[in-house]
């Protein structure tokens, strides 16, 4: 299957050549040449004003079945009786989507003795909670979690199934999608609906955030996506804490699968987990020494936030890897991101672009961080940060 090219419409403008992320398009004489390696990503189709390029229509392996009636589901990730914030964020998003489709919202709660969490899920927007309790679900292991969610979804038929793109979600949700023989879009940052075709428009960054792609699951149900924590908003006004709890007995689960939980060997100790923080103060190479992170910790504490770092700072051994933000570290989406002594390598920017508001402090006015910052302070961080800390303290006293 290959890209459809109508030579008669082509104006040889070259826009598609520039747009191709894989470099397989080239203009050879009077004709566009499509080389080996096309992945049918559609980037060229998007930029072609002459409509000379098109993606082939895929013939599905199976016709689109009737719309399942289970509504929109959210996987209610919990650990040791505490819900992951992203589950509540996604219930908020599910409510908004459900209103457009006129369907109910349900949460799926897996664990061992977790029934007490149901009211919190109702308040966050769920009409219904599917609850499966089993000793094999006490701690997260891919196999039992995938088996449980696959079975519940197969039995009750959601139209859409969302989960947080946490380490847990990203580990087992793909197995659920494979088990249900349906599509899955990873790490979405926006959802919308095509109401006519009842399609969930799933938007996500690709190429390290350098381009965005909107993806659909046109032929199968449920339409599944994982969503980036911290991006979607919880309901501003909580719903009443009541609804239907559907207890599901899972015959298939046993504790003695091929993969078993042994124990937690290390908890990551942080004042506040980065992924959950609303304010992040992050430091880079410009901090020069490990001890200067102390200053960032002070500022973070005053702002009720967490401390992050660039790869350069982590590689220099100034701060542990758990604090690393960016392409090879964590992706964060705080309300406020303060970049201190960070030049703004593209890999780092990839991890912070969902932040609501970015402040950059750097002495190099040419630093790329200033291009993405809402406010950029050009100056010596060793003067500005202490002054900021002093200003906040002065006012609070």
């Amino acid at each position: 299957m290959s890209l459809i090219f109508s030579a008669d419409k082509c104006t040889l403008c070259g826009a598609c050549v520039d747009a191709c992320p894989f470099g397989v398009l080239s203009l050879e004489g009077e004709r566009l040449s499509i080389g080996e390696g096309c992945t049918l990503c559609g980037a060229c189709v998007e930029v072609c004003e002459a409509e000379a390029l098109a993606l082939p229509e895929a013939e599905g392996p199976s016709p689109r079945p009737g719309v399942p009636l289970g509504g929109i589901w959210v996987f209610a990730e919990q650990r040791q009786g505490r819900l992951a914030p992203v589950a509540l964020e996604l219930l908020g998003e599910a409510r908004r989507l459900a209103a457009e489709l006129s369907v109910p919202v349900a949460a799926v709660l897996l664990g061992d003795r977790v029934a007490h969490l149901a009211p919190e899920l109702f308040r966050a927007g769920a009409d219904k909670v599917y609850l499966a309790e089993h000793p094999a679900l006490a701690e997260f292991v891919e196999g039992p979690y995938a088996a449980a969610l696959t079975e519940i979804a197969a039995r009750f038929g959601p139209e859409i199934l969302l989960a947080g793109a946490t380490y847990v979600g990203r580990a087992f949700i793909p197995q659920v999608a494979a088990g249900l023989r349906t599509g899955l879009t990873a790490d979405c940052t926006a959802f919308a609906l095509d109401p006519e075709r009842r399609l969930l428009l799933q938007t996500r960054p690709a190429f390290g955030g350098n381009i965005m792609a909107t993806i659909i699951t046109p032929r199968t149900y449920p339409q599944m996506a994982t969503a980036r924590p911290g991006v979607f908003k919880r309901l501003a006004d909580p719903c009443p804490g009541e609804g239907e709890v559907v207890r599901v007995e899972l015959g298939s689960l046993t504790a003695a699968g091929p993969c078993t939980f042994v124990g937690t060997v290390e908890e990551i100790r942080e004042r506040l987990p980065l992924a959950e923080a609303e304010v992040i103060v992050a430091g880079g190479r410009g901090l020069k020494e490990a001890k200067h992170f102390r200053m960032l910790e002070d500022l973070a504490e005053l702002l009720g936030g967490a401390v992050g770092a660039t790869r350069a700072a982590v590689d220099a051994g100034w701060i542990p890897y758990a604090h690393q933000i960016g392409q090879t570290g964590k992706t964060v989406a705080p309300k406020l991101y303060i970049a201190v002594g960070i030049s703004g390598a593209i890999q780092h920017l990839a991890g912070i672009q969902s932040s609501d508001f970015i402040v950059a402090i750097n002495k190099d006015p040419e630093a790329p961080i200033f291009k993405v910052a809402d406010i950029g302070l050009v100056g010596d961080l060793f003067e500005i940060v202490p002054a900021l800390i002093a200003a906040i303290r002065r006012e609070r006293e």
Partner: protein
Amino acid sequence: MLKIIVCIKQVPETDKVRLDPETHTLIREGVQAIINPFDLYALEAGLRLKEAQGGQVTLLTMGPPQAEAALREALGYGADEARLLSDRAFAGADTWATALTLAQAVRKLGGADLIFTGKQAIDGDTAQVGPMLATILGIPYVAWARKLTWAGDGVLEVERLLDHGYDALRVRLPAVVSVVKEINEPRVPSFKAKMQAKKAVIPTWTLADLELDPHEVGLAGSFTQVVRVFPPPARGESEIWRGDPQELAARLWARLKELGRR
């Protein structure tokens, strides 16, 4: 003897792929095709396990014909053999269709004790192919391993990263394991292995070789479909402030309060 398969992907060096701020088109000048950096950790994990327990490491990739270069490079690290899955029909595959194609190749290889994948590919960042592959093959999947200990008798102990910290698991092989960067420091390639890799015969398996139906693979076999690609939303204009540090700090604090950020 352990049969180890390492799945790799050839990707564009994404830190060089960016959009022209003026024209919003992709600038790919000087963008090279490389082995997905996370896959080198998977390869190292496979090689170390082989060296410790005895076995064979087979590389697997699906991609266009030029993806052979990635396999050849990976052979330079000391893997024993490689297979390229390449066919026009595979183009446009989503993670499901990719996993399905890889699964068929694994079966054709006679299965494996362990299949290693990197954490994710840096172009798509999905981390979906590994777990889907495990489900299609009907074997366990363990994500984000940072430490592997051979417990003997076909059992592997895995320490893995989750949001809260590190958990230990025991998994009975065969299994698919994805590894994170912390697991090891990948070795440098060896000159002799590179020389051998240059001459190595890398079989290409096509749709027909894998005995798959064209409707199952590539774009046709994909459950998801890309409908639009566009540049990330531009932020508002940056404000650049200069001047006395004390004044800058005071001004910033005033603005943060005004924004209600705190």
